[in-house]
């Protein structure tokens, strides 16, 4: 788990009150939703709000990409990094 993934994992654990889980327990390549942490759509909404507030990145379900973005901690973290660097470049 790299630094950015750990930061995002800590944000997820905090915003979802996953008190049984430490950020480092989240396997970066495991599914976040089906299986894995067993998160649901309410959690997705909470994560989207936290990501918007912490990174200024707005997730959309309409993007074909978003389904794969939300697949794992790693994919979500990479997506956020891409969006942040795109914004900085523009």
């Amino acid at each position, binding site marked *: 788990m790299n630094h950015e993934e750990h930061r995002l994992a800590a944000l997820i654990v905090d915003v979802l009150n996953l008190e049984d889980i430490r950020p480092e327990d989240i396997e970066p390549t495991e599914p976040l939703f089906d299986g894995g942490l067993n998160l*649901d759509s309410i959690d997705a909404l909470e994560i*989207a*709000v936290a990501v918007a507030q912490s990174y200024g990145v*707005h*997730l959309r379900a309409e993007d074909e990409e978003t389904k794969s973005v939300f697949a794992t901690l790693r994919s979500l973290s990479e997506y956020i990094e891409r969006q942040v660097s795109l914004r900085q470049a523009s």
Partner: protein
Amino acid sequence: MMRTPGGRLAVLSRKPAGQLAISGGRTIDCGSFLADATAWAERLPDRPYAINLCVDRYLFLVGFIAVVLRGQCNLLLPGRQPGTIHEALRSFPDAWLLHDGAVELPDAIALGISHGSASAAHVGAIPDVPGAQTAAIVFTSGSTGAPQPMRKSWHTLVEGARVNAGYVSGDAAGGGGLVATVPPWHMYGLEWSVLFPLVADWTIYCDEAFFPADIRVALGKLPGPRVLVSTPLHLRAIVKSRLRFPRVDTVLCATAPLDSGLARDVEQLLSTHVLEIYGCSEAGSLAYRWPVRDAAWRFFREIDAEMSGGRVRVCAAHLAETVQLADTLEFQTDGRFSLRGRDGDMVKIGGRRASLSELNNRLLALEGVDDGIVFYPPSFGLEDSGRLSALVVSVSRSAEDIRQELATVVDNVFMPRPIRLVDGLPRSDAGKLRREDLLKLLHVERGRA
């Protein structure tokens, strides 16, 4: 509603030339929608009940009307878990599965519907169906625990939708655009995002409208006036997103109590007014309030309410029978009322309602579970997204193991988080459990974990 001879009611009672939906980025007019629905209706399996599992709102709508046109009934399950679908098939052995490929299906008769793949039949006159036909069965957790099927006649659905439409369309009889953040298969979403556009000249946005950024795009694509059908959870996300939104004429909010501060923030951000809707699966939408102006609720004019033995019963021309409400209401002299709590067994999370005793029965039914209880965590009630907790006694199974099996029959939002294994529950001599004792035990086990 236009009544036709023999008590038949048209499947659409609005101007046929109007735009019904936006789906896949395209505008769909009433004629194309009817062509889709009638073409699919001819291809449905010849069975009485269709478990409508479509997730795409437009396909749900097409499937729903195709089923009704064919003289069948839509079964609308509370969730999409494999166990929930299995149970429905056990209770309705002659049901089949109507889907759009978004849900994992058990082995049963199924038909997948998709966009633009039915032969485009030309539809002349708007078809009608008997008002007395059971068009849908929705399920709610009754006070006894087990989900109760509630039959909705076509008459009840369309006349109820017309009553509802009167409270938002008002002088906007020319129509407008609707965006819903709630799924179409629960009563609130069914009424306001599926049935409403069938009886009023409004366009329903059927593409994604879940995250704030999606909702913003959706609103931008619709003609005005705009109505947003939503929940406190989504509205809180909208406010926290710090995005700018197009002007919305009316925001409807239901499923959980709306804080008046949040209502005020939403009114400012969307230049709108927020109406909170009160209703139940048994009777549909019943009352409204404008939380920034008045904390009290008013029943729709079409609803008659009466007190009977401390409980409130409602009836209306569109309802087949009188419905007793699960909530305690306190009336003022002018007929306005306040909500004073719910039946203690019912929990509501993310807009969905479940019975605690049913959840407990589910837990105790698992093999290897000797004792256990699902209960409210301490923070429950402050946030709509508050979760349940469970304490379980089992010598042969792990908490993870129990969680996985429970997840096959319990909707994700009602899954206890955490599930903790304990040596025993602090039951009194009478077998009762005190909430303080449970919280203490949860706290101790948390410290140990």
